[in-house]
C-alpha cells in the first residue's frame, strides 16, 4: 500500500574524485570545431567552447575574455561562423506548421490565450477556429459573445502553429477537422525535446488508444475515434466543441492508463518518442502481463527501457 524508498545516494565515497579538475588542469587543446561536427558534443554550463576571435556567439553561449562559453547544457551546433548551443531541457521553441496541444488560460476579446509550454502564451484568434457545423462565414459579433461556448478556461485543444506575432508569441489555428477540442482521455507532459517530428502526430495504437504527440511535449492519450478524414460530412456538428465524454469501457481506460505510464517511463529515461517505439513498448508490457501501476516500479521500467533499446 504505502512503501518508503530512499533518495539515491552516491554509491562511491570517491564519487567525484576522478572527474574533478580545476579548469586550468584540463586538457589544453583548443577545441577544433571541425573535428567535432560529425558527432554532437555535449556541453556543461560554463564550459569553454571556442575562441571568440574566429567564431560568433549564438544562443546558449556568452563571451568572456575572448572565449565563447556555453551557458546551458546541450549540444553544440554550428552554422558557418555562428556557434550555438541547443539546450537539452528548455521550453518549447515553436516553428510554423508544428502540431501542438495546449490549454486555454484566458478568454479575451476575439482571441484566446493558450498555454502551450512555450515562453509566452500562444494566441488563438477567433478568426482561426472553425464554426460548429463547418459553415464558412465571417465571424460576427454574436460569435464573439459566445466564445466560451467554443473554448473556455482549462479546455484542452490540438492546433497548428500558424504564424508569429512581432513579440514572438505564436498564433495558432484549428481550421481543420483534425484539430479542435480534446476529450475522452488524459494529458501527459514530457520534455518537448523528446517529441520527434514525425510524418503524422496522430497515432492510433491497435489497443484502441489514440495518441496526439504535440511537439510542445504535451501528449494527449485518448480513446480511439473513427477516422475523421473519411467521413468529413458525416461528423456530428455539435461534437466538435462538446465537453461530454463518450462512453469508454474499462478495457480502454486500462489501456489509456497503461500507455500513459509507458510514456511517463520513457520520458523519465529520456527516450525520444516515436510511434514504432510506443507500439513496441506496449507489446512488451502486454507480454509481461504485469499490473498497470507496476510499469512505474524501478525494476520493471529498467527492463522496459532495456528491452526497447535492444530492439531498436
Amino acid at each position, binding site marked *: 500500500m504505502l512503501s518508503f524508498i530512499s*533518495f539515491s545516494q552516491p554509491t562511491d565515497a570517491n564519487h567525484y574524485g576522478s572527474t574533478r579538475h580545476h579548469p586550468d588542469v584540463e586538457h589544453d587543446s583548443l577545441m577544433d570545431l571541425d573535428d567535432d561536427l560529425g558527432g554532437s558534443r555535449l556541453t556543461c554550463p560554463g564550459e569553454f567552447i571556442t575562441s571568440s576571435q574566429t567564431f560568433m556567439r549564438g544562443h546558449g553561449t556568452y563571451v568572456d575574455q575572448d572565449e565563447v562559453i556555453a551557458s546551458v547544457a546541450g549540444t553544440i551546433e554550428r552554422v558557418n561562423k555562428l556557434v550555438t548551443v541547443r539546450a537539452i531541457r528548455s521550453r518549447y521553441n515553436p516553428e510554423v506548421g508544428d502540431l501542438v496541444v495546449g490549454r486555454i488560460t484566458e478568454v479575451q476579446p476575439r482571441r484566446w490565450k493558450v498555454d502551450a509550454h512555450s515562453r509566452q502564451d500562444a494566441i488563438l484568434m477567433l478568426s482561426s477556429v472553425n464554426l460548429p457545423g463547418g459553415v464558412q462565414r465571417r465571424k460576427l459579433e454574436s460569435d464573439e459573445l459566445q466564445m466560451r461556448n467554443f473554448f473556455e478556461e482549462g479546455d484542452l485543444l490540438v492546433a497548428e502553429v500558424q504564424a508569429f506575432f512581432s513579440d514572438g508569441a505564436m498564433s495558432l489555428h484549428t481550421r481543420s477537422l483534425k484539430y479542435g*477540442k480534446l476529450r475522452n482521455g488524459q494529458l501527459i507532459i514530457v520534455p518537448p525535446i523528446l517529441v520527434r517530428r514525425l510524418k503524422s502526430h496522430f497515432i492510433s495504437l491497435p489497443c484502441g488508444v489514440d495518441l496526439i504527440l504535440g511537439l510542445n511535449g504535451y501528449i494527449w492519450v485518448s480513446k480511439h475515434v473513427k477516422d475523421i478524414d473519411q467521413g468529413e460530412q458525416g461528423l456530428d456538428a455539435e461534437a466538435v466543441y462538446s465537453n461530454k465524454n463518450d462512453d469508454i469501457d474499462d478495457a480502454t481506460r486500462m489501456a489509456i492508463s497503461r500507455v500513459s505510464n509507458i510514456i511517463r517511463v520513457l520520458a523519465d529515461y529520456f527516450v525520444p518518442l516515436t510511434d514504432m517505439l510506443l507500439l513496441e513498448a506496449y507489446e512488451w508490457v502486454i507480454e509481461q502481463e504485469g499490473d498497470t501501476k507496476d510499469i512505474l516500479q524501478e525494476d520493471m521500467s529498467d527492463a522496459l527501457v532495456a528491452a526497447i533499446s535492444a530492439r531498436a
Partner: protein
Amino acid sequence: MSSLSKAEKSYIQSSLLSKPPLRADGRALYDFRAVALETGVAPLANGSARINIGRNAHDGGGGTEILAAVKLEVETVADGEGVDGGRVVGTVSCSPAAYPHLPSGALDDLQHDLTSVLHDTVSYLEKKSWLLNLDVIVLSDDGNVCDALFMAARAALWDTKVPRTRSVEYQAKKAGNNAEGNRDIEMDEEGKSGFDTRITKKVTDFELPDYWDEGEILDGRNIWPICVTLNLLPPVFFLDAALQEESSIPLRLHLMFSLPPSEKPRLQTFRLLGPSGVDVPLIKSLIKEGEVHARSIWTALDAKLKDEDIRRNQKARDRFLHR
C-alpha cells in the same frame, strides 16, 4: 495546471466510479505513490527531513517535494516572548517555483493556510522547553501536499536532538558579607566595589555540556501527528491524489491522527475542504476508515525513520573510521 477541462474532470471522475475503480496511473484507490524520505539533510538544523511523494524512479524529477527543518531557539520567559514550558511555531513557505501559475497574493494565501493547519495541529502538544521553530518549504507540488507536509514535519521532529543543558547560577558577593559557605563555585570574582549598581544579585544562565551533534531526542517523539487525506467522490474515496485528480474532486477530508503505540489513537484535527457537503454518519465512518489508513502510514513511516537512524549512524561510523 490548476484548472482542468470539463472533459478531463469527467474522465477522471467516471474512471474512479467505474467497477473496478481506475486511476490515471493504474493505482488502486488506497495506494500511495512511492514515498522517498531522508532525515538529517540540513546540517545546521537540530532536525531535518526531506520527503518526496511520487518522484520518478530513474531521474528523480517530479513529485511533491517538501523540506522540513527544526531549529531550537532559546527564549527568555520574562520579557513576554517566551512561554514557560516552551512553545512550537510551525511555518510553511511555498516556493514560487512549485506554483508557477499562482500570483504572489494567492501564494501567500496558500502559505498562510498550510501554516495555520500545521501550526494549530503541532503547537497544541506543548511538550517542549524551548522555542521550537519548525520550518517547512514546499519545493514542488504534484498533489497531496498535506500528507507530505505532516510526514516531513514528523520526520524532522523525530530527527530533532535537543542539546542537554545544565543550569548555572552566578551570584554576586553580598557587600560586607564574608560568609564563605554561601558562595557558588563559579562566582564572579569581583572585588568589593562601592559602585556596584547592579540590582540583581543573581544571574541564571545555562551551559551546554555536550558537543553539538549530540543531545537527547525530543520528548514525545511518538505523538507527533500525521495527516491522511481522504479525497471524496461519493460513494468512494481514495488516497494520495495526484494534482489532476485533486482538482477534479468535489471534497477533501484531512484527518490528523496521532497514534502512539501504547495509548489510544487521537484525532488531533480534521478539516473538510470543498464546495459540496457530507452528512454526519458518513463523516463518522470516514474517520474510522481514515484511522485504518493512517495507521498503515504511521507504521510504515516509523519503520522508515528507524532505518534512517540506523543508516546515519552507520554513515557516521564509517566517516569516523576513514578519518
